[in-house]
Protein backbone atom coordinates (compact mmCIF):
# COMPACT_ATOMS: atom_id res chain seq x y z
CA UNK A 1 0.00 0.00 0.00
CA UNK A 2 2.83 2.40 0.82
CA UNK A 3 4.44 1.42 -2.46
CA UNK A 4 1.21 2.10 -4.38
CA UNK A 5 0.76 5.45 -2.64
CA UNK A 6 4.33 6.39 -3.41
CA UNK A 7 3.86 5.44 -7.06
CA UNK A 8 0.71 7.57 -7.20
CA UNK A 9 2.54 10.51 -5.63
CA UNK A 10 5.52 10.18 -7.98
CA UNK A 11 3.24 9.99 -11.01
CA UNK A 12 1.22 13.01 -9.95
CA UNK A 13 4.31 15.01 -9.12
CA UNK A 14 5.90 14.22 -12.47
CA UNK A 15 2.74 15.14 -14.38
CA UNK A 16 2.28 18.30 -12.41
CA UNK A 17 5.90 19.32 -12.97
CA UNK A 18 5.48 19.03 -16.74
CA UNK A 19 1.96 20.46 -16.88
CA UNK A 20 3.21 23.67 -15.25
CA UNK A 21 6.44 23.62 -17.19
CA UNK A 22 6.85 27.39 -17.39
CA UNK A 23 6.47 27.82 -13.64
CA UNK A 24 8.52 24.72 -12.88
CA UNK A 25 11.35 25.94 -15.12
CA UNK A 26 11.29 29.38 -13.57
CA UNK A 27 11.49 27.80 -10.13
CA UNK A 28 14.32 25.46 -11.13
CA UNK A 29 16.30 28.34 -12.62
CA UNK A 30 15.78 30.65 -9.63
CA UNK A 31 16.74 27.94 -7.20
CA UNK A 32 19.72 26.99 -9.36
CA UNK A 33 20.88 30.60 -9.13
CA UNK A 34 20.36 30.62 -5.38
CA UNK A 35 22.18 27.35 -4.90
CA UNK A 36 25.04 28.61 -7.08
CA UNK A 37 25.28 31.63 -4.78
CA UNK A 38 25.09 29.38 -1.74
CA UNK A 39 27.76 27.13 -3.27
CA UNK A 40 30.02 30.11 -3.98
CA UNK A 41 29.46 31.24 -0.43
CA UNK A 42 30.51 27.83 0.87
CA UNK A 43 33.49 27.65 -1.48
CA UNK A 44 34.72 31.11 -0.58
CA UNK A 45 34.22 30.30 3.08
CA UNK A 46 36.18 27.10 2.65
CA UNK A 47 39.00 28.79 0.72
CA UNK A 48 39.17 31.56 3.25
CA UNK A 49 39.31 29.15 6.15
CA UNK A 50 42.14 27.30 4.39
CA UNK A 51 44.04 30.54 3.88
CA UNK A 52 43.28 31.52 7.43
CA UNK A 53 44.54 28.20 8.75
CA UNK A 54 47.82 28.95 7.00
CA UNK A 55 47.98 32.40 8.58
CA UNK A 56 47.00 30.98 11.93
CA UNK A 57 49.86 28.53 11.85
CA UNK A 58 52.21 31.40 11.03
CA UNK A 59 50.97 33.95 13.53
CA UNK A 60 50.60 31.47 16.36
CA UNK A 61 54.36 31.10 16.23
CA UNK A 62 56.34 33.95 17.75
CA UNK A 63 60.07 34.45 17.91
CA UNK A 64 61.43 35.83 21.17
CA UNK A 65 64.77 37.52 20.39
CA UNK A 66 67.47 36.89 22.95
CA UNK A 67 69.74 39.83 23.83
CA UNK A 68 73.40 39.22 23.06
CA UNK A 69 75.28 38.25 26.20
CA UNK A 70 72.37 36.62 27.99
CA UNK A 71 73.68 33.62 29.97
CA UNK A 72 72.77 30.35 28.34
CA UNK A 73 71.38 29.04 31.65
CA UNK A 74 68.89 31.94 31.74
CA UNK A 75 67.77 31.08 28.18
CA UNK A 76 67.33 27.40 29.12
CA UNK A 77 65.38 28.32 32.26
CA UNK A 78 63.02 30.52 30.27
CA UNK A 79 62.68 27.82 27.63
CA UNK A 80 61.73 25.35 30.41
CA UNK A 81 59.24 27.82 31.84
CA UNK A 82 57.59 28.29 28.45
CA UNK A 83 57.56 24.58 27.68
CA UNK A 84 55.79 23.95 31.00
CA UNK A 85 53.11 26.52 30.18
CA UNK A 86 49.94 24.67 29.04
CA UNK A 87 49.22 27.33 26.40
CA UNK A 88 52.51 26.63 24.64
CA UNK A 89 52.74 23.60 22.42
CA UNK A 90 56.40 23.76 21.45
CA UNK A 91 59.53 25.84 22.12
CA UNK A 92 62.74 25.68 20.12
CA UNK A 93 66.00 27.45 20.80
CA UNK A 94 67.77 28.85 17.75
CA UNK A 95 71.36 29.94 18.37
CA UNK A 96 72.90 32.97 16.69
CA UNK A 97 74.75 30.68 14.27
CA UNK A 98 71.63 28.74 13.41
CA UNK A 99 69.76 31.98 12.89
CA UNK A 100 72.41 33.19 10.49
CA UNK A 101 72.43 29.89 8.64
CA UNK A 102 68.64 30.05 8.29
CA UNK A 103 68.87 33.62 7.04
CA UNK A 104 71.47 32.75 4.44
CA UNK A 105 69.57 29.67 3.32
CA UNK A 106 66.56 31.75 2.31
CA UNK A 107 66.91 32.52 -1.42
CA UNK A 108 65.16 35.87 -0.87
CA UNK A 109 68.12 37.03 1.21
CA UNK A 110 70.93 36.16 -1.22
CA UNK A 111 71.95 39.75 -1.96
CA UNK A 112 71.63 40.88 1.64
CA UNK A 113 73.57 37.90 2.97
CA UNK A 114 76.62 38.80 0.88
CA UNK A 115 76.81 42.22 2.51
CA UNK A 116 76.63 40.88 6.06
CA UNK A 117 79.80 40.86 8.08
CA UNK A 118 79.92 39.10 11.43
CA UNK A 119 76.58 37.97 12.89
CA UNK A 120 74.09 40.78 13.54
CA UNK A 121 71.25 38.31 14.19
CA UNK A 122 69.87 37.53 17.63
CA UNK A 123 69.57 34.04 19.01
CA UNK A 124 65.88 33.33 19.46
CA UNK A 125 63.28 31.14 21.10
CA UNK A 126 60.65 30.03 18.61
CA UNK A 127 57.46 29.53 20.54
CA UNK A 128 54.45 27.77 19.04
CA UNK A 129 51.28 28.72 20.90
CA UNK A 130 48.41 26.23 20.87
CA UNK A 131 45.55 28.73 20.59
CA UNK A 132 45.72 31.92 18.57
CA UNK A 133 43.87 33.75 21.34
CA UNK A 134 46.74 33.09 23.79
CA UNK A 135 49.52 34.50 21.62
CA UNK A 136 49.17 37.99 23.10
CA UNK A 137 49.57 36.69 26.67
CA UNK A 138 52.67 34.66 25.79
CA UNK A 139 54.08 37.70 24.03
CA UNK A 140 53.58 39.81 27.16
CA UNK A 141 55.28 37.12 29.23
CA UNK A 142 58.26 37.06 26.86
CA UNK A 143 58.65 40.84 26.84
CA UNK A 144 58.93 40.80 30.66
CA UNK A 145 61.77 38.25 30.57
CA UNK A 146 65.09 39.73 31.57
CA UNK A 147 66.98 38.13 28.67
CA UNK A 148 64.86 39.57 25.88
CA UNK A 149 66.47 41.91 23.34
CA UNK A 150 65.07 45.29 24.43
CA UNK A 151 65.41 46.91 20.99
CA UNK A 152 63.52 44.18 19.16
CA UNK A 153 61.83 41.92 21.74
CA UNK A 154 59.54 39.69 19.61
CA UNK A 155 58.14 39.51 16.13
CA UNK A 156 54.55 39.51 17.43
CA UNK A 157 52.19 41.83 15.55
CA UNK A 158 49.18 42.03 17.83
CA UNK A 159 47.23 44.38 15.62
CA UNK A 160 47.50 42.16 12.63
CA UNK A 161 46.51 39.06 14.55
CA UNK A 162 43.55 40.77 16.15
CA UNK A 163 42.37 42.07 12.82
CA UNK A 164 42.62 38.64 11.29
CA UNK A 165 40.60 37.20 14.14
CA UNK A 166 37.97 39.89 13.80
CA UNK A 167 37.81 39.55 10.04
CA UNK A 168 37.34 35.82 10.21
CA UNK A 169 34.59 36.21 12.79
CA UNK A 170 32.79 38.80 10.65
CA UNK A 171 33.18 36.73 7.51
CA UNK A 172 31.71 33.75 9.33
CA UNK A 173 28.68 35.76 10.45
CA UNK A 174 28.24 37.28 7.00
CA UNK A 175 28.43 33.85 5.40
CA UNK A 176 25.82 32.39 7.72
CA UNK A 177 23.59 35.45 7.27
CA UNK A 178 23.82 35.25 3.50
CA UNK A 179 23.08 31.54 3.60
CA UNK A 180 20.02 32.15 5.79
CA UNK A 181 18.68 34.76 3.36
CA UNK A 182 19.22 32.40 0.43
CA UNK A 183 17.41 29.61 2.26
CA UNK A 184 14.40 31.81 3.01
CA UNK A 185 14.23 33.11 -0.56
CA UNK A 186 14.32 29.65 -2.06
CA UNK A 187 11.66 28.35 0.32
CA UNK A 188 9.41 31.22 -0.72
CA UNK A 189 10.04 30.44 -4.40
CA UNK A 190 9.16 26.77 -3.95
CA UNK A 191 6.12 27.76 -1.91
CA UNK A 192 4.76 29.90 -4.72
CA UNK A 193 5.53 27.31 -7.38
CA UNK A 194 3.68 24.69 -5.42
CA UNK A 195 0.76 27.04 -4.92
CA UNK A 196 0.45 27.25 -8.69
CA UNK A 197 0.48 23.47 -8.86
CA UNK A 198 -2.16 23.35 -6.13
CA UNK A 199 -4.28 25.84 -8.05
CA UNK A 200 -4.14 23.69 -11.17
CA UNK A 201 -5.16 20.63 -9.20
CA UNK A 202 -7.67 22.21 -6.83
CA UNK A 203 -10.53 20.12 -8.24
CA UNK A 204 -8.59 16.92 -7.81
CA UNK A 205 -7.73 17.92 -4.24
CA UNK A 206 -11.39 18.61 -3.50
CA UNK A 207 -12.42 15.20 -4.82
CA UNK A 208 -9.58 13.51 -2.93
CA UNK A 209 -10.86 14.99 0.30
CA UNK A 210 -14.44 13.99 -0.43
CA UNK A 211 -13.55 10.37 -1.08
CA UNK A 212 -11.51 10.19 2.10
CA UNK A 213 -7.87 10.61 1.10
CA UNK A 214 -5.55 11.25 4.03
CA UNK A 215 -3.80 14.60 4.30
CA UNK A 216 -0.47 12.98 3.53
CA UNK A 217 -1.88 11.39 0.43
CA UNK A 218 -3.00 14.82 -0.80
CA UNK A 219 0.25 16.46 0.23
CA UNK A 220 2.61 13.75 -1.02
CA UNK A 221 2.67 14.65 -4.73
CA UNK A 222 3.35 18.31 -3.96
CA UNK A 223 6.14 17.59 -1.53
CA UNK A 224 7.71 15.25 -4.08
CA UNK A 225 7.34 17.91 -6.77
CA UNK A 226 9.14 20.34 -4.46
CA UNK A 227 11.92 17.84 -3.78
CA UNK A 228 12.20 17.20 -7.53
CA UNK A 229 12.53 20.93 -8.20
CA UNK A 230 15.18 21.23 -5.51
CA UNK A 231 17.18 18.24 -6.72
CA UNK A 232 17.14 19.31 -10.37
CA UNK A 233 18.23 22.81 -9.38
CA UNK A 234 20.96 21.41 -7.13
CA UNK A 235 22.29 19.26 -9.99
CA UNK A 236 22.44 22.26 -12.31
CA UNK A 237 24.10 24.40 -9.66
CA UNK A 238 26.60 21.68 -8.91
CA UNK A 239 27.48 21.23 -12.59
CA UNK A 240 28.08 24.98 -12.94
CA UNK A 241 30.23 25.12 -9.81
CA UNK A 242 32.29 22.06 -10.79
CA UNK A 243 32.96 23.58 -14.21
CA UNK A 244 33.84 27.01 -12.85
CA UNK A 245 35.77 26.05 -9.71
CA UNK A 246 39.22 25.22 -11.05
CA UNK A 247 39.40 28.05 -13.64
CA UNK A 248 38.23 30.49 -10.99
CA UNK A 249 40.88 29.37 -8.52
CA UNK A 250 43.62 29.60 -11.15
CA UNK A 251 42.46 33.00 -12.28
CA UNK A 252 42.42 34.20 -8.68
CA UNK A 253 45.88 32.85 -8.02
CA UNK A 254 47.22 34.59 -11.11
CA UNK A 255 45.66 37.92 -10.08
CA UNK A 256 46.17 37.89 -6.32
CA UNK A 257 49.28 35.83 -5.87
CA UNK A 258 49.94 36.69 -2.23
CA UNK A 259 46.82 34.87 -1.01
CA UNK A 260 47.64 31.17 -1.09
CA UNK A 261 44.28 29.94 -2.40
CA UNK A 262 44.36 26.26 -3.23
CA UNK A 263 42.25 24.02 -5.45
CA UNK A 264 40.61 21.37 -3.32
CA UNK A 265 38.66 18.77 -5.34
CA UNK A 266 37.80 16.82 -2.18
CA UNK A 267 35.75 19.77 -0.99
CA UNK A 268 33.59 19.36 -4.12
CA UNK A 269 32.33 16.03 -2.81
CA UNK A 270 31.17 17.57 0.43
CA UNK A 271 29.74 20.53 -1.50
CA UNK A 272 27.80 18.12 -3.75
CA UNK A 273 26.33 16.46 -0.69
CA UNK A 274 25.42 19.80 0.88
CA UNK A 275 23.78 21.13 -2.28
CA UNK A 276 21.77 17.99 -3.08
CA UNK A 277 20.58 17.45 0.47
CA UNK A 278 19.98 21.19 0.88
CA UNK A 279 18.06 21.39 -2.42
CA UNK A 280 15.86 18.43 -1.52
CA UNK A 281 15.15 19.78 1.97
CA UNK A 282 14.39 23.28 0.69
CA UNK A 283 12.03 21.79 -1.90
CA UNK A 284 10.29 19.60 0.64
CA UNK A 285 9.95 22.37 3.20
CA UNK A 286 8.78 24.97 0.67
CA UNK A 287 6.11 22.71 -0.76
CA UNK A 288 5.02 21.47 2.65
CA UNK A 289 4.43 25.04 3.76
CA UNK A 290 2.91 25.89 0.37
CA UNK A 291 0.20 23.22 0.52
CA UNK A 292 -0.37 23.10 4.24
CA UNK A 293 -3.37 25.39 4.14
CA UNK A 294 -4.97 23.70 1.15
CA UNK A 295 -4.85 20.10 2.22
CA UNK A 296 -6.62 20.62 5.52
CA UNK A 297 -9.48 18.15 5.39
Amino acid at each position, binding site marked *: *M*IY*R*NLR*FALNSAWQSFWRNLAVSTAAVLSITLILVLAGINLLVGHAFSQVLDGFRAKVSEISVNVADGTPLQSVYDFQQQLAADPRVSNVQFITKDQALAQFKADPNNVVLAQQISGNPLDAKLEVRVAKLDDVAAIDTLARRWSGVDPTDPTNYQGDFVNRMLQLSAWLGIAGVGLLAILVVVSIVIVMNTIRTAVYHRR*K*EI*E*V*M*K*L*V*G*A*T*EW*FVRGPFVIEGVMTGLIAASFALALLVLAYQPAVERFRADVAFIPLSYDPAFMVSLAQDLLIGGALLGALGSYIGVRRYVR*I
Partner: protein
Amino acid sequence: MISFQHVFKTYSTGTEALRDVNLVVPEGDFLFLVGPSGAGKSTLVRLLIREEKPSKGKIFVDGVELGRMKRRQLPGYRRKVGLVFQDFKLLPNLTIYENVAFALRVHGEAENMIQSRVAEALDTVGLSGKDNTYPANLSGGEQQRVAIARALVHAPRFIIADEPTGNLDPATAWEIMQLFLRINARGATVVMATHNREIVDLLRRRVIAIDAGQIARDDRSGRYHDDLSKPQIRAQ
Protein backbone atom coordinates in the same frame (compact mmCIF):
# COMPACT_ATOMS: atom_id res chain seq x y z
CA MET B 1 -27.99 5.93 12.65
CA ILE B 2 -27.62 9.67 12.38
CA SER B 3 -28.78 12.07 15.05
CA PHE B 4 -28.62 15.85 15.41
CA GLN B 5 -29.01 17.23 18.93
CA HIS B 6 -29.71 20.95 19.23
CA VAL B 7 -27.41 21.77 16.36
CA PHE B 8 -26.65 25.39 15.57
CA LYS B 9 -24.42 26.66 12.80
CA THR B 10 -23.35 30.27 12.54
CA TYR B 11 -20.82 31.06 9.81
CA SER B 12 -17.94 33.41 10.46
CA THR B 13 -19.87 35.99 8.40
CA GLY B 14 -22.52 36.00 11.12
CA THR B 15 -25.14 34.13 9.08
CA GLU B 16 -27.16 31.79 11.27
CA ALA B 17 -27.55 28.95 8.79
CA LEU B 18 -29.03 26.39 11.22
CA ARG B 19 -30.86 26.95 14.48
CA ASP B 20 -31.62 24.23 17.00
CA VAL B 21 -31.89 21.33 14.59
CA ASN B 22 -32.99 18.03 16.16
CA LEU B 23 -33.18 15.02 13.95
CA VAL B 24 -32.90 11.23 14.03
CA VAL B 25 -32.32 9.20 10.87
CA PRO B 26 -32.53 5.46 11.48
CA GLU B 27 -30.56 2.90 9.50
CA GLY B 28 -32.01 2.32 6.02
CA ASP B 29 -34.07 5.52 5.96
CA PHE B 30 -34.66 7.51 2.77
CA LEU B 31 -34.90 11.18 3.64
CA PHE B 32 -35.59 14.29 1.57
CA LEU B 33 -34.41 17.67 2.84
CA VAL B 34 -36.53 20.35 1.21
CA GLY B 35 -36.84 24.09 1.61
CA PRO B 36 -36.20 27.32 -0.21
CA SER B 37 -32.79 28.42 -1.36
CA GLY B 38 -30.69 29.62 1.55
CA ALA B 39 -32.73 27.62 4.08
CA GLY B 40 -29.70 25.72 5.29
CA LYS B 41 -29.94 22.37 3.47
CA SER B 42 -26.38 22.39 2.16
CA THR B 43 -25.14 23.51 5.55
CA LEU B 44 -26.79 20.46 7.09
CA VAL B 45 -25.11 18.26 4.46
CA ARG B 46 -21.71 19.88 5.08
CA LEU B 47 -22.07 19.28 8.81
CA LEU B 48 -22.98 15.67 8.14
CA ILE B 49 -19.85 15.02 6.11
CA ARG B 50 -17.76 16.98 8.63
CA GLU B 51 -16.76 19.62 6.13
CA GLU B 52 -18.00 22.03 8.80
CA LYS B 53 -18.38 21.69 12.55
CA PRO B 54 -21.52 22.76 14.42
CA SER B 55 -21.21 26.01 16.39
CA LYS B 56 -23.31 24.42 19.10
CA GLY B 57 -24.91 21.04 19.65
CA LYS B 58 -23.87 17.54 18.70
CA ILE B 59 -24.09 15.30 15.66
CA PHE B 60 -23.75 11.55 16.07
CA VAL B 61 -23.19 9.04 13.28
CA ASP B 62 -23.18 5.43 14.43
CA GLY B 63 -22.59 6.60 17.97
CA VAL B 64 -19.53 8.72 17.10
CA GLU B 65 -19.76 12.45 17.71
CA LEU B 66 -18.54 14.18 14.56
CA GLY B 67 -17.39 17.29 16.39
CA ARG B 68 -14.99 15.23 18.47
CA MET B 69 -13.63 13.17 15.62
CA LYS B 70 -9.88 13.61 15.20
CA ARG B 71 -8.57 14.82 11.87
CA ARG B 72 -6.86 11.53 11.23
CA GLN B 73 -10.15 9.69 11.72
CA LEU B 74 -11.82 11.77 9.04
CA PRO B 75 -10.61 9.83 5.97
CA GLY B 76 -12.07 6.63 7.46
CA TYR B 77 -15.36 8.38 8.12
CA ARG B 78 -15.54 9.83 4.61
CA ARG B 79 -15.25 6.30 3.26
CA LYS B 80 -18.33 5.31 5.20
CA VAL B 81 -20.38 7.95 3.40
CA GLY B 82 -20.89 8.27 -0.35
CA LEU B 83 -21.27 11.85 -1.55
CA VAL B 84 -23.14 13.06 -4.63
CA PHE B 85 -23.37 16.70 -5.69
CA GLN B 86 -25.31 18.77 -8.14
CA ASP B 87 -22.18 19.53 -10.18
CA PHE B 88 -20.95 15.88 -10.27
CA LYS B 89 -17.35 16.83 -9.34
CA LEU B 90 -15.79 14.47 -11.88
CA LEU B 91 -12.16 14.93 -12.91
CA PRO B 92 -12.20 15.87 -16.63
CA ASN B 93 -8.75 14.51 -17.42
CA LEU B 94 -9.58 11.03 -16.12
CA THR B 95 -11.67 8.38 -17.88
CA ILE B 96 -14.92 7.11 -16.38
CA TYR B 97 -13.11 4.07 -15.07
CA GLU B 98 -10.34 6.17 -13.55
CA ASN B 99 -12.81 8.60 -11.99
CA VAL B 100 -14.47 5.77 -10.11
CA ALA B 101 -11.18 4.00 -9.38
CA PHE B 102 -9.83 7.27 -7.94
CA ALA B 103 -11.89 6.82 -4.77
CA LEU B 104 -10.14 3.49 -4.14
CA ARG B 105 -6.77 4.61 -5.42
CA VAL B 106 -6.46 7.34 -2.78
CA HIS B 107 -6.55 4.58 -0.20
CA GLY B 108 -3.80 2.60 -1.89
CA GLU B 109 -6.06 -0.37 -2.74
CA ALA B 110 -4.66 -3.20 -4.87
CA GLU B 111 -5.22 -3.02 -8.62
CA ASN B 112 -7.18 -6.30 -9.00
CA MET B 113 -9.49 -5.27 -6.17
CA ILE B 114 -9.98 -1.87 -7.79
CA GLN B 115 -10.85 -3.51 -11.11
CA SER B 116 -13.60 -5.73 -9.76
CA ARG B 117 -15.11 -3.05 -7.50
CA VAL B 118 -15.16 -0.41 -10.25
CA ALA B 119 -16.72 -2.85 -12.72
CA GLU B 120 -19.39 -3.69 -10.17
CA ALA B 121 -20.13 -0.03 -9.40
CA LEU B 122 -20.33 0.91 -13.09
CA ASP B 123 -22.64 -2.03 -13.64
CA THR B 124 -24.91 -0.88 -10.81
CA VAL B 125 -25.34 2.56 -12.38
CA GLY B 126 -25.78 1.05 -15.86
CA LEU B 127 -22.57 2.36 -17.41
CA SER B 128 -20.76 -0.89 -18.15
CA GLY B 129 -18.73 -0.57 -21.34
CA LYS B 130 -18.10 3.18 -21.02
CA ASP B 131 -14.91 2.65 -19.02
CA ASN B 132 -12.62 4.53 -21.37
CA THR B 133 -14.90 7.46 -22.17
CA TYR B 134 -14.13 10.89 -20.73
CA PRO B 135 -16.74 12.83 -18.73
CA ALA B 136 -17.02 15.53 -21.41
CA ASN B 137 -18.38 12.93 -23.82
CA LEU B 138 -21.22 11.92 -21.52
CA SER B 139 -24.67 13.46 -20.96
CA GLY B 140 -25.43 15.12 -17.63
CA GLY B 141 -27.39 12.11 -16.45
CA GLU B 142 -24.53 9.77 -17.35
CA GLN B 143 -22.04 12.00 -15.58
CA GLN B 144 -24.16 11.90 -12.46
CA ARG B 145 -24.25 8.10 -12.73
CA VAL B 146 -20.45 8.09 -12.77
CA ALA B 147 -20.45 10.24 -9.65
CA ILE B 148 -22.87 7.83 -8.00
CA ALA B 149 -20.70 4.88 -9.01
CA ARG B 150 -17.75 6.66 -7.38
CA ALA B 151 -19.82 7.21 -4.23
CA LEU B 152 -20.84 3.54 -4.22
CA VAL B 153 -17.47 1.99 -4.84
CA HIS B 154 -16.61 1.90 -1.12
CA ALA B 155 -19.94 0.20 -0.40
CA PRO B 156 -20.84 3.07 1.96
CA ARG B 157 -23.57 2.77 4.60
CA PHE B 158 -24.72 6.34 4.01
CA ILE B 159 -25.37 8.14 0.75
CA ILE B 160 -25.54 11.90 1.12
CA ALA B 161 -26.64 13.87 -1.91
CA ASP B 162 -26.98 17.64 -2.30
CA GLU B 163 -29.40 18.44 -5.14
CA PRO B 164 -28.22 15.51 -7.28
CA THR B 165 -30.89 16.16 -9.92
CA GLY B 166 -30.54 19.94 -9.90
CA ASN B 167 -28.79 20.04 -13.27
CA LEU B 168 -30.84 17.32 -14.98
CA ASP B 169 -34.00 17.31 -17.09
CA PRO B 170 -37.08 15.68 -15.51
CA ALA B 171 -36.81 12.34 -17.29
CA THR B 172 -33.13 11.96 -16.44
CA ALA B 173 -33.76 13.14 -12.88
CA TRP B 174 -36.30 10.40 -12.52
CA GLU B 175 -33.84 7.76 -13.72
CA ILE B 176 -31.24 8.98 -11.25
CA MET B 177 -33.84 8.90 -8.49
CA GLN B 178 -34.61 5.27 -9.35
CA LEU B 179 -30.96 4.55 -8.87
CA PHE B 180 -30.98 6.09 -5.37
CA LEU B 181 -34.07 4.05 -4.51
CA ARG B 182 -32.30 0.85 -5.59
CA ILE B 183 -29.27 1.74 -3.50
CA ASN B 184 -31.56 2.44 -0.55
CA ALA B 185 -33.33 -0.88 -1.09
CA ARG B 186 -29.97 -2.61 -0.78
CA GLY B 187 -29.65 -1.19 2.71
CA ALA B 188 -27.87 2.18 2.47
CA THR B 189 -29.32 5.15 4.32
CA VAL B 190 -29.99 8.01 1.89
CA VAL B 191 -30.14 11.70 2.84
CA MET B 192 -30.94 13.95 -0.10
CA ALA B 193 -31.37 17.70 -0.27
CA THR B 194 -33.54 18.53 -3.24
CA HIS B 195 -35.64 21.12 -5.02
CA ASN B 196 -37.43 18.56 -7.15
CA ARG B 197 -41.06 18.89 -6.13
CA GLU B 198 -42.48 16.31 -8.58
CA ILE B 199 -40.19 13.58 -7.35
CA VAL B 200 -40.71 14.33 -3.66
CA ASP B 201 -44.47 14.42 -4.10
CA LEU B 202 -44.51 11.22 -6.13
CA LEU B 203 -42.30 9.12 -3.88
CA ARG B 204 -43.96 10.06 -0.57
CA ARG B 205 -40.90 9.31 1.51
CA ARG B 206 -39.84 11.00 4.72
CA VAL B 207 -39.62 14.75 4.15
CA ILE B 208 -37.91 17.26 6.40
CA ALA B 209 -38.66 20.85 5.47
CA ILE B 210 -36.12 23.43 6.54
CA ASP B 211 -36.98 27.09 6.66
CA ALA B 212 -34.60 29.84 7.73
CA GLY B 213 -32.34 27.32 9.43
CA GLN B 214 -35.02 25.57 11.42
CA ILE B 215 -36.90 22.32 10.90
CA ALA B 216 -40.42 23.40 9.95
CA ARG B 217 -41.84 19.96 9.32
CA ASP B 218 -40.87 16.28 9.55
CA ASP B 219 -43.38 13.99 7.82
CA ARG B 220 -43.11 10.22 7.61
CA SER B 221 -44.55 10.16 4.14
CA GLY B 222 -44.48 13.75 3.14
CA ARG B 223 -44.83 16.14 0.23
CA TYR B 224 -42.76 19.05 -0.95
CA HIS B 225 -45.32 21.54 0.46
CA ASP B 226 -47.49 20.79 3.43
CA ASP B 227 -50.33 23.12 2.45
CA LEU B 228 -51.44 22.50 -1.12
CA SER B 229 -53.80 25.46 -1.07
CA LYS B 230 -50.98 28.00 -1.14
CA PRO B 231 -47.98 26.40 -2.81
CA GLN B 232 -46.83 29.64 -4.47
CA ILE B 233 -45.94 31.22 -1.16
CA ARG B 234 -43.53 28.45 -0.19
CA ALA B 235 -42.41 27.63 -3.70
CA GLN B 236 -39.31 29.30 -4.95
